């Protein structure tokens, strides 16, 4: 049982890309960019998630139905976040303590 089997190129590349993205997101986190820090962290996490979903979970080879099922969860999560946060962002007395100091 030899160990010379090589992983498929696309899997290897995406693995390395994921590790690289991990490194970048950590380094960027230490650069003080204010709000941008959060936005970049989430974008990089989304890219890493997309790589895992598209390649590891073979979504790119699947029919549109499977892709819609995969996206449905995130879309509905988006609805929940969007409308609930609309309340939190515009509520006059939340939080009782501090409001706008970003």
């Amino acid at each position, binding site marked *: 049982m030899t160990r010379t089997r090589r992983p498929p190129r696309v899997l290897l590349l995406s693995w390395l890309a994921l590790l690289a993205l991990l490194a970048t997101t950590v380094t960027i986190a230490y650069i003080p960019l204010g709000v941008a820090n959060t936005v970049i962290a989430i974008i990089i996490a989304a890219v890493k998630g997309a790589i895992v979903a598209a390649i590891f979970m073979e979504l790119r080879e699947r029919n549109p139905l499977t892709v819609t099922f995969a996206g449905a969860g995130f879309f509905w999560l988006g609805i929940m976040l969007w409308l609930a946060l609309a309340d939190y962002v515009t509520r006059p*007395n939340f939080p009782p303590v501090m*409001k706008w*100091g970003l």
Partner: protein
Amino acid sequence: MDNWASHANPLLPHGETTHASSVDLLFLGLVASSILVLVLLFFLLFRFAIHYRAGNTNADRDHRIRKSWRLETAWTVATLVAFLALFVWGARLYLNLYDVPGDAQPIYVVAKQWMWKVQHPGGQREINELHIPINQSVRLIMSSQDVIHSFFIPAFRVKHDVLPGTSEEIWFDPRKAGVFHLFCAEYCGTDHSRMTGRIVVMQQPEFETWLARQDVNGTLASQGASLFRQLGCSGCHGNGSKVRAPALEGLYGSRVSLSDGTMEIADERFIRDSILKPRAKIAAGYQALMPAYEGKISEDEVVKIIAYVKSLGGEMGVPQ
């Protein structure tokens, strides 16, 4: 308890407050549009049910409507337009609840498991009762000591939840003298159904005499002043003190810049939070020295100190 059962016909607006009569008008609009739809629907249902019953063989059953989308779009658009109108009507009235008139008389309400504690600015205190003068709009600043309650006056068509940890406001301008129900509308435990009370709207002179008759150990502000000294607040905030603490004269209603660069209006809520959780909102240029009074002083004492701080002047507060 004279006109307890004076609940006139619920359908006709008998405007205890301006808002109540406009809500009753909205109710009539809603009922009218619903009855229109119901009559249309039930008429069609019965007509088809009778005319096209299996037994009736001579009913004409061919050349049925083939293309349905014209009819579909017609009644869909009709319902959408009707709904939009009802939405706008309801929304406009709802927003009145949020623009409190400037001259509204503030009264503090503290909800506690299964009773309402009301405190007038003049120091009068009531349990499960609220005496207010007619034709004078009133602003209730409400907070809860335990769970969520809800201050509900059916006659005024107004209700708002009373939340622990923060203060909520409602306002109304009673137009009719009388005694009205007060209910707790948010389930709050065993005696939720006993947490009721009375709103007594009186003529101005009667209200004055009622105010005078209450045994008041000083106005709310004066009680707050004694608490201010008793709890040691004057040690730092008093004008003779050597400790650097923000001056409270003219604080109420002013814009305060905080240590992290944000600006806030010092309303009741700001003062309340600065007393209970001072370290979270530090005025610009000061250190976080003030001890937190959360848990050390009760809700009623907080209300008194707020009244005292307001009494130290400032645009919104009228010095008492």
